[in-house]
């Protein structure tokens, strides 16, 4: 089975079922199957071939969904890029994966799409969506999404892919600050989605609401899994307007609610009694740990629904889940290995550890992805040989301990990666951007505990230029970084602590911050 078969099979079985509710549109499986065929044909005609990368740069939308499946039907590999990414990083990602096509929203602020054709020479074609009638970009290498839908044949293309071919690259932050593309082949996605569907117990009647970006694997898999089991996806742009989301849950009789701790923290502050949320059958949490108090409060608030605490990393998609019946007994645990996979905990010497001992979580299964795109060193570090010849297991870089019954508890990370709003932020990436400002001598970016964000980003800055203000630092960050990477706090210091090798001691700053809070 291939990933685009999720759509093709459901369209064959349930052609008239509404598959996608988004932005006022209600699209059936047949609609989407035909739209993706048309776009796939346009991509192929403009030179996209088997294995070519197709970048999708858009907020959650019908066009983004069509773009994902059209890329696969064309034989390509889809790469969804967070729509708040700024020009330089977008260009860097397009060049890193040598994208052959870019499907983009013409309305995105701060990005000059025409310049991309010049700066990312691998691009053969750009597909523009949501173009206003007034400011159409005319360029021989740009085509219009709506024109493609009006002009191209909707007959399916011949199948060219096998399940060892790549299906997608998902870019994630690494500790070096350079974004890395996690490669998933079709079989990885098919296996991971099946495993998750099994324990979430999805059925065709499920209506799943997704407000997480499709650039984030947790959001992306809501789409992929729902199309696989023939359900309905209610696709929202974000959780910015919680009341609008709650209203949508009522209107659409939503059964599945995937959230992250920030969303749950906001939800638990609201008066939910005015909404009928009785249709919800399950809630899931991942991306960062829910505080045990929130786990129990969610249990009480949604006492009729199943609550899943989960853990994963893009490199294996999902890794652990806590069976809902265990939630009240072990609210701090993120559970056991997902069906069909196994995990263990190792110390630095590679010895497997028993209950109560903290060590690195290692993951084995067909959901272990294919490595990082053209980054052999980073791949070799994270994906190491497994028990059988030719096999690879994933070293997560996350420290866990296990209780006597084998349930796992997250302890901390081995590196400095910050988790804010459930998104990974590499301190180095933010620091590099702040160093671009004139007069900046030293920067250290750390995460500080925050009740809503999980961790809030704080930048310590040493500047020669006494005129540099917090606003200037923040404005610069906002112009260069995705929204979730912009610091919440900036503090100017005369100097920063350094360790014996002369590097800035980020850890010492974090410890000092935590000590301040505990006094």
């Amino acid at each position: 089975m291939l990933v685009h078969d999720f759509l093709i099979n459901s369209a064959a079985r349930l052609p008239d079922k509404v598959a996608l509710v988004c932005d006022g549109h209600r699209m059936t499986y047949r609609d989407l199957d035909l739209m993706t065929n048309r776009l796939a044909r346009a991509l192929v005609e403009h030179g996209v071939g088997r294995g070519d990368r197709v970048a999708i740069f858009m907020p959650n939308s019908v066009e983004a969904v069509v773009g994902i499946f059209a890329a696969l039907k064309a034989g390509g590999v889809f790469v969804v890029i967070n729509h708040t990414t700024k020009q330089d990083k977008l260009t860097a990602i397009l060049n890193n994966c040598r994208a052959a096509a870019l499907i983009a929203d013409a309305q995105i602020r701060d990005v000059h799409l025409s310049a991309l054709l010049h700066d990312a020479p691998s691009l053969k074609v750009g597909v523009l969506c949501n173009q206003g009638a007034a400011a159409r970009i005319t360029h021989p290498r740009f085509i219009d999404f709506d024109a493609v839908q009006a002009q191209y044949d909707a007959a399916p293309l011949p199948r060219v892919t096998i399940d060892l071919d790549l299906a997608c690259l998902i870019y994630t932050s690494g500790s070096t600050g350079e974004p890395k593309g996690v490669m998933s082949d079709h079989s990885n996605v098919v296996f991971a989605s099946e495993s998750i569907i099994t324990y979430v117990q999805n059925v065709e009647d499920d209506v799943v609401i997704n407000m997480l970006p499709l650039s984030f694997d947790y959001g992306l898999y809501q789409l992929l899994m729902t199309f696989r089991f023939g359900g309905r996806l209610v696709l929202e742009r974000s959780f910015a307007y919680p009341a609008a989301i709650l209203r949508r849950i009522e209107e659409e009789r939503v059964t599945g609610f995937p959230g992250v701790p920030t969303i749950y923290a906001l939800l638990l502050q609201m008066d939910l009694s005015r909404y009928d949320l009785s249709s919800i059958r399950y809630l899931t949490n991942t991306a960062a740990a829910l505080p045990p108090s929130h786990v129990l409060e969610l249990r009480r608030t949604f006492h009729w629904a199943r609550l899943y605490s989960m853990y994963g990393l893009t490199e294996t998609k999902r890794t652990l889940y806590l069976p809902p019946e265990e939630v009240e007994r072990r609210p701090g645990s993120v559970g056991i290995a997902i069906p069909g996979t196994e995990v263990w905990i190792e110390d630095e010497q590679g010895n497997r550890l028993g209950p109560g001992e903290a060590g690195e979580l290692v993951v084995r299964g067909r959901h272990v992805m294919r490595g990082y795109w053209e980054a052999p060193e980073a791949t070799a570090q994270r994906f190491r040989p497994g028990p059988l010849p030719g096999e690879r297991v994933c070293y997560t870089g996350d420290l866990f301990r296990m209780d006597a019954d084998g349930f796992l508890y997250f302890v901390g990370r081995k590196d400095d990666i910050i988790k804010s709003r459930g998104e990974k932020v590499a301190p180095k990436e933010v620091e590099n951007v702040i160093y671009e400002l004139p007069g900046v001598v030293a920067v250290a970016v750390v995460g500080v505990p925050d009740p809503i964000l999980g961790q809030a980003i704080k930048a310590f800055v040493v500047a020669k230029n006494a005129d540099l203000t917090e606003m200037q630092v923040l404005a610069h960050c906002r112009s260069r970084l995705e929204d979730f990477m912009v610091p919440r706090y900036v503090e100017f210091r005369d100097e920063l602590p350094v360790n014996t090798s002369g590097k800035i001691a980020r850890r010492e700053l974090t410890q000092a911050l935590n000590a301040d809070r505990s006094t």
Partner: protein
Amino acid sequence: MQVTALDIPAQIRTYITHNLLFGDESLIYSDEDSFLERGIVDSLGVIELVTFLEAQFGISVADHELIPENFDSVKNLAEYVARKLETATLVEAPRSSFDLGEAYAGP
């Protein structure tokens, strides 16, 4: 504090420029432009806007009012604030002889 309906959009814009765009005045947007679509306000920016409105205009934003129709453009926000101020004035009318600050000073 005296607020006229005319001031409201300007005050909202000033707040956005300073606190959400960090002083970046290069972004041109109309009063009708969607905050989310134009990337002016992100999901947490909406929560910050609530705090600002409550402090600046002395209104109280109910959870169920957090919808794009009230919040997603300068125009929507200004109209929402004006409506809230109007209702607040009606409610407060019987004690109009009190200083507003004193009326709120109680427990």
